[in-house]
């Protein structure tokens, strides 16, 4: 038996517009980023003094290419979710908010497309 009022059922999720999906996805990507970002920093430490060929060889190794793809995608996803909350918290004009929320997504897709294109080009 549902304890929700008829009004609540009609209005769905109300002014929140969404349920716990955002919260859950933010946490899930956070958990994934713990090992991925440690891997990323340790890897970069190995490349500080490395020349161009060593950097190429690093990303040509399938394991590193795959981990870099996972890192970039998870990072950008976690980032859009986080920046979205920042925008929703501080921007109160509806027009500006919608514009920034859109730009937030566009930014992530653009950085993601460029990064993945680069990784594929190096690794394949």
């Amino acid at each position, binding site marked *: 038996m549902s304890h929700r009022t008829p009004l609540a059922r009609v209005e769905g999720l109300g002014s929140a517009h969404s349920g716990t999906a955002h919260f859950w996805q933010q*946490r899930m990507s*956070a*958990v994934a*980023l*713990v090992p991925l*970002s*440690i891997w990323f*920093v340790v890897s*970069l*430490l190995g490349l*500080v003094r490395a020349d*161009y060929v060593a*950097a*190429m060889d690093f*990303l040509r190794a399938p394991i590193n290419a795959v981990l*870099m793809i996972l890192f*970039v995608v998870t*990072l*950008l996803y976690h*980032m859009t979710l*986080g*920046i979205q909350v*920042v925008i929703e918290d501080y921007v*109160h*004009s509806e027009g500006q908010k919608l514009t920034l929320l859109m730009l937030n997504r566009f930014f992530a897709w653009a*950085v993601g497309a*460029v*990064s993945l*294109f*680069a*990784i594929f*080009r*190096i690794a394949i």
Partner: protein
Amino acid sequence: MAEPRPLSPHLQIYRWPVTMMTSITHRATGVALAAGTVLLAWWLIAIATGPDAYAMVRTAAASPIGLIVIFGFIWSLAFHLLNGIRHLAWDVGLGFAVPTAVRTGVLVIVLSILLAVGVFATGYGVAP
């Protein structure tokens, strides 16, 4: 929006508790790291482009400003990672008592600085 109404309470009348400071810093470091994704993309594209483009990245990274920016990102990531783990602990209901939250907050600040200095020193050979 209607006419601006007074905000209450004003930020400047607060004594800044550790929990508030770590919360705001978590957000600030998150925004900084978001900007850093552009540099990550630049690094990847440089490797894909060729030795000249990669040399440019290395020159920029080795410049004084480059080193400051790199240290800034290392610390931001260290803080966001450690404080993020603190948040995940809260999410499963651990460490909510105020004295505990203050202690873990101080711990995160200290550890993030130590970790950042350690990583930077490892990468740039300042350590023995």
